[in-house]
C-alpha cells in the first residue's frame, strides 16, 4: 500500500507561508488516495514557483518551458496511456504563455490533470500582473492599476466543453486533495484552478481574504448542470465557490482511437517486415 512517505522528497525553495506548501501536501495526499505509486505518475511542469512543485516530491518529472506543460503532457500521454499524467504550473504559465495550449487541450480532451496555482500575480519575476489579476490591481507593471479584465478560466473551460473543472483553495488541504483525486480519476482533461495566496507580492488576496469569502459546494449542487455551472463560474467577490464546478462525460482522445490504448506506442516492437509495404506506394 502506497503511503505519503513514498512521496516525500527533500527541501523546497519556496517562501515561508507560501500557498504552494498546502498544494504540495494536497497533491501527495490525492495520489495516495487514488492508490498510485510514484513510478506510475508523470508530472509535467513549466516555469514559475508553482512549477517547482514536482521537484519536492517523488515522481517522474519533465520540468519543461514556461507555458508549454500541456503539449509535453499530451505527447507523453498519447504514447504511453498507462501513465497518470499531471501538469502543474501557475496562472502566468497556464493562462498567459500557455493560453492557446489550454484551449486546445480542452478540445482534445486528453486524459491529463491540469493543476493551476492561481495567485493572481507573478511571483518568481517579483510582482507583475497576471491574466487573473483583478481590474485595478496595482503591480510593478500596472502602476495605475490593471486595465485588462481578468480571465475567467472556469467559465472559459465550461464554455469549451471541458470534461472536468473544479476550484480549490490551498488553505484547505483536505478539500483540495479530494478535488485533485477526483480530477485524476476523471476520464478526460481536468482542470483544478487552485486559489493560492502569494504572501510576498499579493497583499489583497490573502488567506484571510479568501477565508472570509470561500464556501464549499455541497451535495445540493449538480455539477452536470451546465447552466448552473456557468453561474457558479461567475461568482466572485463577496462569495467564492470551491469544489467540483462542472463535469461531463466525453469521449477522451485515447478512447476515440482504441488502437492507442490496446496497442500503445511505447509497447510496439518495431519490425521492418511490418513496414515493407510502405515503398509500394511509390512503385511505378
Amino acid at each position, binding site marked *: 500500500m502506497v503511503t505519503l512517505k513514498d512521496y516525500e522528497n527533500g527541501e523546497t525553495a519556496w517562501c515561508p507561508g507560501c500557498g504552494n506548501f498546502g498544494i504540495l501536501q494536497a497533491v501527495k495526499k490525492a495520489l495516495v488516495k487514488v492508490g498510485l505509486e*510514484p*513510478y*506510475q505518475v*508523470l508530472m*509535467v511542469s513549466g*516555469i514559475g514557483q508553482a512549477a*517547482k512543485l514536482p*521537484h519536492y516530491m*517523488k*515522481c*517522474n*518529472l*519533465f*520540468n*519543461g*518551458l514556461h507555458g*508549454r506543460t*500541456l*503539449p*509535453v*503532457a*499530451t*505527447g*507523453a*500521454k*498519447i*504514447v*504511453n496511456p*498507462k*501513465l497518470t499524467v499531471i501538469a502543474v504550473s501557475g496562472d502566468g504559465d497556464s493562462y498567459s504563455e500557455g493560453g*492557446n*495550449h489550454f*484551449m*486546445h487541450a480542452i478540445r482534445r480532451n486528453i486524459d491529463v490533470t491540469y493543476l493551476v496555482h492561481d495567485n493572481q500575480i507573478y511571483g518568481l519575476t517579483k510582482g507583475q500582473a497576471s491574466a487573473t489579476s483583478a481590474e485595478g490591481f496595482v503591480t510593478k507593471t500596472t502602476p495605475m492599476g490593471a486595465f485588462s479584465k481578468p480571465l475567467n478560466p472556469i467559465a472559459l473551460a465550461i464554455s469549451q466543453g471541458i470534461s472536468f473543472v473544479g476550484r480549490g483553495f490551498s488553505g484547505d488541504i483536505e478539500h483540495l486533495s479530494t478535488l485533485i483525486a477526483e480530477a485524476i480519476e476523471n476520464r478526460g482533461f481536468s482542470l483544478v484552478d487552485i486559489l493560492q495566496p502569494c504572501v510576498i507580492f499579493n497583499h489583497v488576496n490573502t488567506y484571510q481574504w479568501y477565508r472570509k469569502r470561500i464556501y464549499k459546494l455541497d451535495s445540493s449542487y449538480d455539477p452536470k448542470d451546465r447552466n448552473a455551472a456557468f453561474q457558479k463560474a461567475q461568482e466572485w467577490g463577496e462569495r467564492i465557490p470551491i469544489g467540483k464546478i462542472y463535469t461531463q462525460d466525453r469521449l477522451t482522445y485515447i478512447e476515440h*482511437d482504441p*488502437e*492507442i490504448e490496446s*496497442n500503445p*506506442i*511505447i509497447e*510496439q516492437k*518495431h519490425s*521492418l517486415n*511490418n*513496414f*515493407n509495404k*510502405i*515503398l509500394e*506506394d*511509390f*512503385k*511505378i
Partner: protein
Amino acid sequence: MNMSIDISFKIGGEAGQGLQTIGYILAKSLARGGLYVFTNQDNESRIRGGHNFYQIRISDNKVENLTEEIHVIIALDEKTIIEHKDELVRNGVIIFDGEKISVKKYDENLLNVPFERLAKEKSGSTKMANSVAIGAAISLVGYDHSFLESVLKDEFGSKGAEISDKNIQASRAGFNFVSENGIGEFPYRVKKIGDSQDFIFLNGNEAVASAALLSGCKFVSAYPMSPSTSIQQFFASKMKDYGVVFEQAEDEISAINMIIGASFAGARSMTATSGGGFSLMVEGLSLAGMTETPIVIVICERPGPATGFPTRTEQGELEFAIYAGHGEFPRAVFAPGNVEQAFYLTSKAFNLAEKYQIPVIILSDQYLADSYFTTERFDISSIKVDRGEFFTESQVKKLGEYKRHLITESGISPRLFPGQKLGLVVTDSDEHTEDGHITELADVKINNVNKRFRKLELLKKNIGTPFVYGSKDADTLLIGWGSTYGALKEATKILNDQGSNVKMLHLSEIWPFPVEAVRNELKIPDKSISVESNSTGQMAHLIRAETGIEINKKILRFDGRPLTPQYILREFRKGR
C-alpha cells in the same frame, strides 16, 4: 555518344486546372517505360487562377534536376505560351486547344488539339480534356499509349471502371488526333528502354516520411505549413495501418513540445515545418538540447524573410538551423541532395538523435520536397534501428538509483522511460543535477556543459565525407549543399565535357561540420565558388568559420526559383 533521350515537358495553366494530376500521370507513364523521370512544380500561393506550371524531364540516364530547355509545352492557357515559348528548343512544339483559347500568331510550332471537343465526344463531358492533352503529348513524342492507359487505370480505378475507361478513351482520342493530324516528323522521340519494376517514383517529402516510418518513428506532431505539409499528410495516412500517431498541433510551439513529451515517454518522434514554423520551435529546440531528449525536425525551406514566397524555394536557413536556440548544445544538421539522400539521412537522423540524445535537423526545401524522382528501389534491409544506451535491471547494482543525466565518460547517460519500477525519470529545463533536479551549483553547470559537448565529439565521428565529383586535379571547385546537388553535378559535367577542369564538392551531412574533409578539398580557395540558393552565401560563411578558409566567389540564386545547370553556367561564364 549513343543516341540518348533527354526531353522536357512543361504543362502550364491556372491553379485549379489539374496541372498536378496531368503532370503526375504523364510523368508516371514515361517512368513505366523504364525511363528516368524528374518533375517539379511551380505554383503560386493561391487555390484558383494565376499561372502555374509542372515540368517533367525524362532521360535514359539518371536525371536529378530541372533544365531550362523545353521540348514540349502543353498550354492550358495563352499565358503559358507567352511566358514559356522562349524556353522551347529548336523544333519544339506547343500543344494547345485552339477551340478553347484564342491565341495570337506565334513563330513557334503550335499544335492545335481540340482537348475539350474530343473529351466531350468520347466521354460526354469536357472534364476529361486533360487526358486528351496527355494522349496528344504521348503521341507527339512517339511513345507507346499502353503505358498511359495502365497509369490512368491505376489512378482513376478507385473511382470506378467507367471513369477510368472514359479517361482512357479521351487520351486515346488525343493520341489518335495527333497521329492523324500531326506536324510531321517531331525530332524528339521517346521509347521504352526497360522494365520499371526495380524503380520507384517519389518526391523528397515522401522519401523523408517513408524513411521515418521504416526507421521506427511512431509519433509526429506538426502544424500545416507549405512545403512540409505532405510529410504530415503521408504520416497521417499511415495511422490506421501501422498504429502510429499523427497529431495536428495548435501551433508549432505545441508541435515540438508534443514530440519532446512523446520522445521522453519512449517514442521515436518527429515534426516537420518550414522556416517560419521552425522560428516558433526554436525555444523547444533548446529544451531538447538541455533535457537531452532525442527529436528529429524536418525544415522544408522556402524563401523568406517572414512569409516570403510561400510556395517557392530557397536555401536561406542553413545558418539558422545550425545556430538556432538559446544557449549552447550539440545537434546534427543534414541537408539531403536527392531522394536517396533524403531517405537514408532521415534514417540516420533518428539513430543519431537517440544514440546521442540530441535534436537532429533535416534541412530540405521546396525544390526537393515537391520534386519527383525515379530512383532505384531503396534497400530497406540496410535500415538499422539503434535506439542507444538504456538503463537495465543489471545496471541497478553498478549504477545504483537511476539518474537520467548521469555523468559518464562518453557524455551519454543511459535512458529509461517513465512508468517503470526500475526508477524515476526526472529531467529539467533548468540546469540540473545528475538525477534531473533543479540546481544552481556552478560546478554542476560546468560538468553538464562538458558532458553534453563530449557527445558532440562522438557525433563528429558519424559524419560522412562530402561527395566529390568531376576532374581530380581540377583548377576550379564548385561547392554546394542540399537540394542543388543535381544541378551542380550536371553543370560540372557540362563544363568538363566542354574542356574545363572542374570539380564539385557537395555537403549533405553539414553539422557537426566535416572540417578536415572540407579543408582537404579546398586546396584552391581563390578558384573555389560557392553555389547556393540564397543571397549571402551561407555555406561560404560556414566554411570560413569552421576552416578559416575564405571563399570569395559565389554563384547565388535568390529569386525563389530552383538553381539549374544553365543558371550556374551563365553565372560561371560571367566571372571569366
